[in-house]
């Protein structure tokens, strides 16, 4: 992980070195990368952001672990598994600049969020702050906490893009101050904040948000589901109270591999979603080092993912994907005659939201849950999610090392055709 990334402001700085790959000069990236992945001929993946994908080399790495376990399951589980997991934690700790003993490997963000939220002893009067753009499973988990505790309630910050970084921080701070003004004895105990939200995909001013929230004495849980592999992570610098990130999204490990950050000061009160034999007898590390019998090869594939990425370097990957998202988004907006959601480039990581020129936002086919998925997949053999936000209809496109600008042009044309068809139906 390069230490030359200045993290001195709320904006993520991207190096502008001319030696790093760009859409105009993809270097080792672009369509030549397709063969390293699993995509069949004729299918282009525009939605890496939802479920990620991994390389053939990562799958081989996963199978290596899988087979090793089967050679001698007892030796594997009882002697070799834990050191292997500890090694992965060590690699991730170096990657994210923190202590490996502050990390726990879990299956995914949903598990990570539940781990923390269901461990905290919320008391009557506690409030949980979240943004309206937070992920649905996180929102539901917060609701569950409120349902199962007396007088624990949600304080929601309404966020409607486009907003600048400054405006996002302002909205959150305003909500906090409005709450303080109530003087009703309640207190905002914890805030759930996206680093990069899902839908819409917005790269938030996370350092500014963390600092501001902590200045009000609020615990901050950063939902960094999309962060690792998409933006540089420095946990020592960011200093959140909790953080969860999926390795299987942008890091290229196999699905079911995520990492939870819990600073030492909180560890004694955090327990796994599934309590096991080491409860209260070994501390955080032991409680989280074994999740019961399962296939750990997906988690261990993080090793293969890091190895694959090292060939190119994080800077190169991040730079290419980011530039492609920005330029690809611009191209699509041009073709569609619309715009992108985010006013500033720094609000885009690898995912860009482009407005779709639908005339009637309540068109019945848009309301039908599966219609667009089936249309895009069956007719065009591709998919990019679409959603409503702020009174408009958007599509979210994920750039990746296996894509090129021409792919975004193609997608722009596809969406143009699809929307024109829908608009034409209205006029019949």
């Amino acid at each position, binding site marked *: 992980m390069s230490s030359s990334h200045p993290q001195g402001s709320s904006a993520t700085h991207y190096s502008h070195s001319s030696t790093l790959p760009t859409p105009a000069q993809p270097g080792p990236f672009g369509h030549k990368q397709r063969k390293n992945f699993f*995509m069949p001929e004729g299918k282009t993946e525009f939605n890496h952001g939802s479920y990620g994908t991994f390389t053939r080399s990562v799958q081989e790495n996963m199978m290596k672990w899988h087979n090793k376990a089967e050679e001698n399951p007892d030796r594997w589980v009882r002697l070799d598994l834990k050191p292997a997991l500890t090694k992965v934690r060590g690699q991730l700790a170096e990657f994210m600049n923190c202590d490996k003993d502050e990390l726990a490997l879990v299956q995914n963000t949903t598990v990570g969020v539940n781990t923390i939220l269901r461990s905290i002893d919320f008391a009557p009067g506690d409030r949980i702050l979240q943004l309206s753009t937070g992920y649905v499973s996180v929102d*539901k988990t917060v609701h569950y906490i409120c349902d199962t505790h007396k007088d624990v309630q949600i304080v929601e910050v309404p966020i409607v893009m486009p907003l600048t970084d400054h405006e996002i921080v302002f909205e959150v701070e305003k909500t906090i101050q409005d709450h303080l003004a109530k003087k009703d004895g309640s207190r905002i105990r914890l805030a759930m904040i996206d680093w990069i939200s899902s839908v819409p995909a917005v790269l938030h001013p996370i350092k500014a948000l963390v600092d501001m929230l902590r200045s009000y004495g609020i615990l901050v849980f950063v939902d960094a589901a999309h962060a690792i592999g998409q933006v540089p992570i420095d946990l020592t610098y960011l200093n959140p109270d909790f953080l969860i990130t999926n390795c299987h999204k942008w890091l290229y490990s196999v699905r079911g591999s995520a990492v939870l950050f819990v600073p030492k000061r909180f560890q004694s009160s955090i327990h796994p979603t599934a309590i096991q034999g080491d409860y209260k007898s070994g501390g955080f590390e032991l409680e989280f080092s074994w*999740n019961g019998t399962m296939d750990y090869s997906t988690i261990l594939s993080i090793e293969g993912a890091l190895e694959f990425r090292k060939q190119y370097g994080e800077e190169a990957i991040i730079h290419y994907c980011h530039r492609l998202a920005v330029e690809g988004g611009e191209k699509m907006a041009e073709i569609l005659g619309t715009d992108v959601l985010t006013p500033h480039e720094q609000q885009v990581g690898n995912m860009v939201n482009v407005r779709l020129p639908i005339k009637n936002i309540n068109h019945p086919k848009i309301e039908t849950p599966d219609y667009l998925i089936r249309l895009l997949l069956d007719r065009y053999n591709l998919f990019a999610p679409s959603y409503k936000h702020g009174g408009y209809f958007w599509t979210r496109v994920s750039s990746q090392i296996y894509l090129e600008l021409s792919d975004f042009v193609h997608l722009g044309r596809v969406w143009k055709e699809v929307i024109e068809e829908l608009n034409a139906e209205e006029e019949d």
Partner: protein
Amino acid sequence: MTNVHLPTAANPGPFGHQQRKNFLFPENYTQFNHGSFGTFPKVVQDDMRAWHDRAEQNPDLWMRRDLYVALNDIRAQLAEFVNCDKEELALVTNTTVGVNTVLRSLPFVPGDRILVLSTGYVSVNQTVRYICDTHQDVKVIEVPVTFPISDKDLLAKVEDTLKAHQELKDGSRIKLGIVDWISSVPSVVHPVKELVELLHSYGALVYVDGAHSIGQVPVDLSHLRPDFYIANCHKWLYSVRGSALLYVAKRHQHLIHPTSITGDYTSGFEKEFGWAGTQDYSSLMSILSALKFRKQFGEDAIISYTHSLALEGGKAMAKILGTHCLTPDDHQVGNMVNIALPIKDLNHLKANTKDFMEILMDKYNVYTPAFRHGDHFYTRVSAQIYLELEDFIRLANIWKEVIDDLNASS
């Protein structure tokens, strides 16, 4: 199981060493501890890999549509296998998750008591402890059980505990009883139908920890009628690790939520348990090929062979070691048998689980767990279709050497 056509230890039929090639063992390795982590045939692994590749061809189509079709199919097949409604089944990662799912969902109130047996699995008992730690005046009532003990005496012990609690008349109530179908260490097949009925008759809900049951004994949930039941498919059913089956009777489903709440919270049991967040579902998918593999031979044949081998193997080992098997009655043995080890000094420093493990693995390249229970040390051996009687004899001779060495040293 006395059908003369079913395979036995004496007449292995399609089973025994000829099955080794269907599995993933290296040449020099014999698996005597299937009970801990299970293993699976090559065809199951190949199939798992095929599902894995398939998902990657089109992750969106897989995650948003085809996965659910496949999960439903698995639930339907398992429902037929265990004789219940498909809507009463959820697929989870393992027993620990299944136990936590129910225990952390039930609305325990002050005065509730949870009954467990002392021979219950450590993770289960720790989860109960966690529930007690996080709820006001919820306590555990433990039935002390030491084997050997007959079914009748075991039931009497549990009933004595229930009666003793009634006598207290302190306003508390036994809300839930957790019972093993087949305990882990020591491994004993319990009289689970009678236990369920007994607990129900005292007004307690019953959670049957069937971690070891499916694939080892016939399971009929319509007959058993537990309130909750969990079974690992990756133990005796031959699916890949991380595939288990949770049964929640319809009348309780509105109370039960996953250990990880997802976007489908409050949309009903089926939806809430249909999606566990992004993960690799190929372990669950492998249940299909595991069932298919077993169908070649038939459940009766598999269970007949492994049970017979456990009994005969246990007897042979006890003879060689000059000791006895833990369980007085044959029907208390499923596929796992516990044989007493002839240790002279029970307090010998090296007479412990860890040291035994190291010697077995490093010197002999085998492993069976050794544990203290009551006044003896036992080792638990798992019979399987890839083993034969001579394997048990070899293992007995290994253990004899290990214990002779131990007894000779001070």
